[in-house]
């Protein structure tokens, strides 16, 4: 929907361009002008320098994905022209730094030279090229110049004389476009009436998560730097000291989770965050947390692996290690948010689940939703309900001796905290009696295995009650999408598009990955003819889990190149699913398993597969 929903990309060498700043400042200007903004960026392999691109999608209504084609490309250098101009839509435009690159051969796309270096020189501000660009973009999008001034002041106004230079640069870019490129701006986006007075947050998933953790009462964090999770540590490093919390940069991830367990044992709501390699290192102590029944939240911001893999690229490949990564059966809960906004609410659920069931909760974010900055509605702080840990209360207990691991009808045992009189016990990694004393009898081991398993299984009941099941689309549709995590964005848009074309789709995203909310998922899949399960990993980890639990085939759509789904890729799958339905026109009942393995279809090679 050009003119109403625009995608702009800025590309160049990160050493020279300030590309990301350019993009971020511009996105904020748009946001302050009352528009909805959704940004993405790449991160170069080089530490400094190296090619980088920033993309912003801007519209009057909420947008849900990064956008497939470009309405506008701003190329700081030749490489950006070469790489991205093929992505420009037919009626899109290219702005290129005419001091540094040549335009592509004429290809029907409008091309506007912007002599960035000359302009910078003209105001005697060599490093002002990015602000000049912002000024140009503001004019091109016909955004209010005052809003731009305001944001530049807020974001880049630390030093007064710098500010003046920046404002001059802004004006220079603005006026250059005004005078040279076109009389009317090519793109005018009108915000919804009064939108600029509506409250909006502009933040990233990692920021939403960090604020959510604080709202959830988290007061202890230990972590070790790792891309793309370090932001969380850095956020809490700044905030915790102000609110009485403690954040420790540990010597490695094993130490980080150990410190976190120690703090939780002592009574604080505690968290650690990492990415794949760190999660792998935490596996041993995650098992201990299950055994000693210690609440803990472990955030994993998934990135592409295996091993070091591609640290700055997205993946949803850690589902299985989150569910199954432990020696012997060590049940735990796995939670996955779906969006920047959702990170706030789901991390609160994660803490409540950990505390309620006294078990580790693994929280699966991903690189894409964690670093992406976008506009979202303000958080509803009234929705924040904190479920406390079941503490031992000597008064209720009469003269009874405290038994830390006493079995109870719901398998949750009251817990004492160091400092509480007569609550002494050992948090024990060996198999143990209710008192905590080691015991190796088959009876006790079996009983405890059952206790630890039951607790976690029963957590499934909270999923619906705690808002961990998100449904949209047409719930009567024969075609469904069952998903998890940040694929929800392109799915939302693809479903809207398909629906508009007469192909309704029912969608369910579960934010509780383990235990699976069986009842709700079963009810959801039962009436469907085709179920699409999109995810960003090689083997279709979630799809396989669904097939394993519900013994029916789903269409596993996998993308595993380190980039998110595009809307059109999901849309294509919906279309294919509908195409499948028509010719046959027989199977009213859901399709079941083929009789022999020969007939079992090989896992789908989705169209998106090699992307």
């Amino acid at each position: 929907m050009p003119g109403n929903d625009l995608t702009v990309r800025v590309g160049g060498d990160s050493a020279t361009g300030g590309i990301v700043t350019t993009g971020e400042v511009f996105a904020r200007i748009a946001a302050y002008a009352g528009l909805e903004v959704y940004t993405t960026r790449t991160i170069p392999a080089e530490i400094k320098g190296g090619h980088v691109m920033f993309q912003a999608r801007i519209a009057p209504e909420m947008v849900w994905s990064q956008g497939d084609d470009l309405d506008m490309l701003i190329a700081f250098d030749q490489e950006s022209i070469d790489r991205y101009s093929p992505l420009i839509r037919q009626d899109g435009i290219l702005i290129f730094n005419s001091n540094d690159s040549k335009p592509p051969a004429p290809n029907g796309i409008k091309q506007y030279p912007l002599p960035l270096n000359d302009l910078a020189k003209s105001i005697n501000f060599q490093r002002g090229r990015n602000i000049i660009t912002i000024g140009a973009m503001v004019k091109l999008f016909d955004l209010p110049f005052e809003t731009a001034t305001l944001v530049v002041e807020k974001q880049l106004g630390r030093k007064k004389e710098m500010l003046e230079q920046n404002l001059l640069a802004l004006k220079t870019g603005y006026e250059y476009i005004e005078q040279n490129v076109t009389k009317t701006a090519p793109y005018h986006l009108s915000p919804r009436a009064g939108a600029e007075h509506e409250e909006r947050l502009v933040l990233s998933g990692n920021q939403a998560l960090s604020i959510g953790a604080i709202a959830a009462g988290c007061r202890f964090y230990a972590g070790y730097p790792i891309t793309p999770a370090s932001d969380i540590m850095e956020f809490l490093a700044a905030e915790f000291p102000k609110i009485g919390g403690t954040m420790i940069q540990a010597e490695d991830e094993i130490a980080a989770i150990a410190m976190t367990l120690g703090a939780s044992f002592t009574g604080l709501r505690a968290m650690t965050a990492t990415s794949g390699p760190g999660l792998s290192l935490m596996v041993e102590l995650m098992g201990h947390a299950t055994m000693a029944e210690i609440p803990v939240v472990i955030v994993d911001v998934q990135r592409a692996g295996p091993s070091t893999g591609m640290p700055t690229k997205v993946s949803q490949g850690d589902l299985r290690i989150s569910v199954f990564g432990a020696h012997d059966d060590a049940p735990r809960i796995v939670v996955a948010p779906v969006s920047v906004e959702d990170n706030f609410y789901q991390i609160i659920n994660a803490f409540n689940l950990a505390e309620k069931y006294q078990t580790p909760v693994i929280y699966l974010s991903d690189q894409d939703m964690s670093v992406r900055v976008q506009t979202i509605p303000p958080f509803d702080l009234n929705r924040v309900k904190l479920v406390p840990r079941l503490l031992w209360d000597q008064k209720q207990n009469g003269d009874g001796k405290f038994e830390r691991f006493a079995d109870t009808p719901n398998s949750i045992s009251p817990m004492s905290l160091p400092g509480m009189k007569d609550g002494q016990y050992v948090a024990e990694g060996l198999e143990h009696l209710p008192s905590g004393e080691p015991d190796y009898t088959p009876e006790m081991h079996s009983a405890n295995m059952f206790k630890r398993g039951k607790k976690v299984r029963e957590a499934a009941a909270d999923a619906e009650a705690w808002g961990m099941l998100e449904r949209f689309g047409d719930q009567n549709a024969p075609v469904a999408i069952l998903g998890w995590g940040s694929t929800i964005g392109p799915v939302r848009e693809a479903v809207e598009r398909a629906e508009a074309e007469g192909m309704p789709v029912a969608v369910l995203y579960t934010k509780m990955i383990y235990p699976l909310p069986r009842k709700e998922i079963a009810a959801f899949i039962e009436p469907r003819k085709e179920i699409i399960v999109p995810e960003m990993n090689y083997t279709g980890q979630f799809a396989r889990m669904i097939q394993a639990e519900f013994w029916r085939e789903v269409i596993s759509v996998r993308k595993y190149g380190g980039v998110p789904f595009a809307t059109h890729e999901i849309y294509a799958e919906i279309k294919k699913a509908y195409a499948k339905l028509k010719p046959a026109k027989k199977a009213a009942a859901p399709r079941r398993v083929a009789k022999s393995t020969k007939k079992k279809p090989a896992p789908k090679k989705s169209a998106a597969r090699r992307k």
Partner: protein
Amino acid sequence: MISTIDPRIMTFEQANLAPNDYKSEVHPIWCPGCGDFGVLSSFYKAVSEMHIPTERLVVASGIGCSGRFPAFVHAYGFHGTHGRVLPLATGIKMANPELVVVAAGGDGDAFSIGMGHLPHAIRRNVDITYIVMDNEIYGLTKGQASPTSPVGMERKASPYGTVETPLNPLLLALARGATWVGRGFSSKPKELVELIKQAMQHKGFSFLQVYSPCVTFYDTYDHFKQVTQPLPADHNSRDKMSAMKYAMSDETLYLGVYYQEERPTFDEGYAAKRAKAHAENYGVPQILSRFTR
């Protein structure tokens, strides 16, 4: 905080308990004659004399014969995984600095798999006491050489003798900047009680190596009786070079307080950060305002 108890604002009174009151109901699984019994009873005595309430005391450990220590103490305990006792204890102490936190374990736990954590506990000067029961062998796994075993040790896993030179734990702790370093011997209970008390009274990270022979896999009672002796009277425990010199002695092994100095503890350092960060009426709404359009 939403738990009914905020662990960070607990207060405690002095206890008045006999050493036996610190004994738990769990019967030690140690071999008769194991040095760890001596450490345990000295520990009971030390905490009794220091009037530490049992509910204020937390003993954390890793895995090993010596790692079973917490179960035998009437106190809070954390029997973690192999080698991770220091970060566990750090988390406990930092979550509630009012607690008295002791880390206990063996030489394998401390210097082999756990070696990566010791320098960092020292750097942070976490206010905990680390008691390493050094028997120069892996007891629980039935007698393999440890990082403090002498060269040439012949055991099932080293039938032709080890070639790795032993580590010098005291020297390491000193080189890393530990603020309290001492050495005891399980067969010298009177001195050991004193050392444990001093270590625990020290504000900051105290590192106490205790020779604690393994009768079953490496009986060093006679050896240690012969080669240990108290640190010379002229040794000044504020003199690091002197401490290093005595730590490097390998014919005679000295017992006592090698070194002590004062340096802000990790929780004090953190408290200073809080003071620096100071913000009134600060919480989620204030944080959100920074991100609000």
